[in-house]
């Protein structure tokens, strides 16, 4: 670790060019530079040595000892085993770890049950594990037969710990060098609720919740296919977060799956709490404004993508799924497009496209036209704008930037406001921005209309990621329009288009299937009739391209 940080620090010496210049006037350039770098290296080295010594007691060493212990098998002596587990779990300091000693009836053997009560079903343990053991009178019966649920055996300490941590019950019997494990995990969480961010009027309302098993169940409910694979891998070293890859074996492209798996296996992190965090680890273009992984909370949407050959990632603690690869269109589309009737679905697609362009361009076009291309405005509007702008003290670019920023502030404030006082924000915001600002001659009325229209249109873009993309892109467009007029606007738009066509998400071009043109799936701006959607998207290279809708 020291090495990597040290390495990265030495890389930044290009930043020292400033120093280089100052030293230039000092005379001996090279020698001074080298000396400086040498001193800097030494300083950093010393700093890290000190840091490791002081802040971190030799915890890595302890961990290795611990690891060695965990690799061992358990003892047949119950007392020893219990002593060991008490030590591992810091009982009695650890209050919800329960150890219960019982004597098994009939066989007359001492036994102990370890559970973590907060994550296991205590009633089930009581009725199906402890009670049958206590009331048994048969001397010859084996323990597995005494218990009604299915029982597994484990003897390595590490494995047993995993089971306990997952809420399962472990039964240790005196004289037996293994533990019986009964599934009893019961993590607390939400039930399946309505989707809150991707709202539809027509169509299913269910959304994912924080339990991966529930989410998988929601997907399996929609795809009753034995080829639907739910593969699980552990992606973090310490928290042992499980990730589930969901795909259909005979559709999804093998290369894509291995590509994703390789990426997952190369992760070297202590903990990844949820998919939102994982998204950043997986993305190719972290600094890009354009998202390359689709994030959805709707199981119907996820299943739709799985059936098309995409790969869905699920995780505990994430009320959503990641879909990869993602194209621009997957962000632009909405599940309701297909639920609504053909014409209505396409109508909302047009609306969304309009909203996209209005959000991106309306304020920029206003700036460009009023500053450079006045002849484009009808005479009446021109005079109206001119008369209202006359008393505004700022240039129109400043005026519109002010209002845009105010709108973003209100939006962010409104989002974080506690629910009970939420409604007031809307009223205050509208009042302050609209009426008062105009009356105070801070902004002209037309600018309020333009910013409000742009702001409201941005809500029509449902996807959170694309929404942010568009909202952020507005500002460069605004400035380019302010500096170069419509010319700047078109130039920047061209650059954006060039960039968008250049990026890829897991090997898939961002604008596919529009460019490069793909004759298989034509679901881009407009959707086709469902019966005409005969093929899966060809850009994914699925194993089975035909949807067999025609037969």
């Amino acid at each position, binding site marked *: 670790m020291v090495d990597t940080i040290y390495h990265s620090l030495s*890389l930044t010496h*290009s930043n020292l060019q400033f120093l280089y210049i100052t030293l230039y006037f000092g005379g001996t350039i090279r020698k001074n530079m080298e000396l400086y770098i040498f001193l800097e290296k030494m300083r950093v080295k010393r700093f890290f040595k000190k840091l490791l010594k002081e802040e971190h007691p030799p915890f890595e060493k302890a961990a290795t000892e611990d690891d060695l212990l965990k690799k061992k098998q358990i003892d047949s002596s119950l007392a020893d085993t219990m002593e060991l587990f008490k030590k591992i779990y810091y009982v009695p300091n650890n209050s919800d770890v329960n150890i219960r000693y019982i004597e098994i009836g009939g066989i007359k053997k001492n036994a102990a049950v370890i559970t973590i009560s907060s994550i296991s079903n205590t009633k089930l343990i009581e009725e199906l594990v402890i009670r049958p053991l206590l009331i048994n009178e048969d001397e010859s019966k084996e323990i597995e037969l005494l218990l009604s649920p299915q029982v597994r055996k484990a003897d390595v300490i590490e494995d047993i710990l995993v089971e306990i941590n997952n809420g399962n019950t472990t039964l240790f019997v005196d004289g037996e060098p293994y533990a019986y494990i009964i599934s009893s995990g019961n993590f607390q969480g939400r039930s399946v609720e309505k989707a809150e961010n991707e709202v539809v009027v027509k169509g299913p309302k269910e959304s994912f919740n924080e339990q991966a098993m529930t989410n998988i169940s929601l997907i399996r409910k929609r795809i009753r296919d034995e080829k639907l694979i739910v593969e699980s891998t552990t992606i973090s070293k310490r928290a042992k977060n499980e990730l589930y890859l969901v795909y259909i074996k005979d559709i999804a492209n093998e290369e894509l799956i291995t590509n994703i798996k390789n990426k997952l296996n190369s992760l070297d992190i202590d903990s990844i709490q949820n998919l939102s965090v994982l998204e950043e680890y997986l993305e190719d273009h972290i600094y890009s404004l354009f998202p390359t992984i689709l994030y959805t909370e709707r199981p119907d949407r996820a299943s739709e993508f799985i059936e098309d050959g995409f790969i869905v990632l699920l995780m505990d603690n994430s009320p959503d799924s990641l879909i990869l690869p993602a194209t621009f269109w997957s962000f632009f589309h909405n599940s309701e497009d297909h639920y609504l009737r053909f014409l209505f679905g396409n109508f909302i697609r047009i609306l969304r496209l309009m909203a996209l362009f209005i959000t991106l361009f309306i304020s920029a076009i206003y700036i460009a036209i*009023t*500053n*450079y291309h*006045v*002849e484009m405005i009808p*005479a*009446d509007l*021109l*005079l*109206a*704008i*001119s*008369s*209202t*702008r*006359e008393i*505004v003290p700022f*240039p*129109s670019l400043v005026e519109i930037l002010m209002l845009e920023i105010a709108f973003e502030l209100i939006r962010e404030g409104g989002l974080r406001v506690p629910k009970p006082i939420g409604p007031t924000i809307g009223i205050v915001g509208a009042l302050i921005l609209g009426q008062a600002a105009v009356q105070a001659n801070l902004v002209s*009325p037309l600018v309020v209309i333009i910013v409000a229209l742009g702001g409201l249109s941005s809500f029509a873009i449902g996807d959170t990621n694309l929404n942010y993309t568009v909202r952020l892109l507005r500002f460069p467009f605004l400035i380019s329009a*302010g*500096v*170069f*007029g419509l010319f700047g606007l078109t130039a920047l738009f061209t650059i954006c288009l060039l960039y968008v066509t250049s990026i890829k998400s897991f090997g898939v071009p961002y604008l596919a299937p529009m460019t490069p043109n793909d004759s298989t799936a034509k679901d881009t701006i407009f959707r086709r009739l469902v019966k005409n959607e005969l093929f899966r998207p060809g850009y994914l290279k699925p194993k089975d391209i035909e949807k067999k809708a025609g037969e």
Partner: protein
Amino acid sequence: MKTRLGLFHFLFLIFILPMLSGCWDQVSIDKRAYVVALGLDKGEDNKISITYLIANPEFSKQEGPSSEPAHEVITFPANDIISAKNTANAVIAKEITYNMLNVLIVSEDLAKDPEFIRYMYDVTKDREIKRNIPMIVTKEKVKTFLLKNKPKLETRIHKYFEFVLENSNKAGLTPNFKLHSYFSITESDAGLFLAPYATTEQIPGGKYTVGEDELLAGELKIEGEESNNSQFLGSAVFKEGKMIGTMNGEETRLTIVLNETLEMGEIYATYPDPFSPQYRFSARIMKREKNDVKINLNGYTPTIDVTVPLYMDILSIHSMETFDNGKIEQLKFHIEEEVQKKLSKLIKRTQEEFKGEAFGWSLIARKKFWTSHDFEKFDWMKTYPNMKVNVSVNVYIGTFGEQSKLPDLNQVRD
């Protein structure tokens, strides 16, 4: 490291980009003075006298008109219309712009000057002036015209010019030629350009005519409570970029009927009643089909045969006659004859007086030549006065108004 350095370079380039081009062209919308009408008068020596009519944006405010006037008129001598922009700033606070220029007004005096075309070509040099604006010729000086022209209802002056020209064009009383046609017609050197003719000077007592449109601007008697006294009626005729005469309302209408490049709306006109000559009936005239123009250039005297199809609804009939089939036929012949006579008279006038045609026939004739050089050699303008032009009119009588039957007057009076 390399990519990061590249990024820095790229960002650096982006930041210096504005310095290369920059926003020097930028003028805020509220820092300009918008000239709505630009007037040209004859000035002293070689100079022209320029009149600006500048709109006051203050007047477009929602809170209602303030105490400021709706517009301002200034006149000053200048060399040309482009340098005049700067000269005007001696008086006008804001930067003068022609972006909103709605109309170009020229006095008859200047338009008839052979030097006039020199000043007109300034228009093609300024990029702010749109060429789809109309050019008006005024009888008096433009300065007087703009000062006296005080529309009572359309105080927002740019709207006034837009509406008054739109509707007089629709009625056929003024031609719908734009500034662009002035240049194209002048440069093709084959036809006449017509500009709307306007004035604020009324002939005392007006002029009496039998019909309703045989008038030129200023000849119509308008009375009312201090009504606006500017009239837009008839057209000024330009040949080779110079004004050579005028056409009254009727002639302008007939020109529109003959000229396919001018759009014809619904025209209401009156004709003498063939059955009781003391009355005139009115008709709504429309053109549903195109004129049939046949040009024969082969003979010694080139001939042009024009057939004008007209659709007419007969509206007010003061003789209270109800027409049966036989009478309709008679009526049709009567109108055809009447219109044909008028058209022939007009064509004769263009051949003899103006020595050029304003009917767009040269465009049709062009197709008869292999090269444009051939056409130029033919010299349409010179040949036209000697051509034989035959006009025939084809009238289709449509309806007789909403209620076609009229009561028998004798029975009513009984």
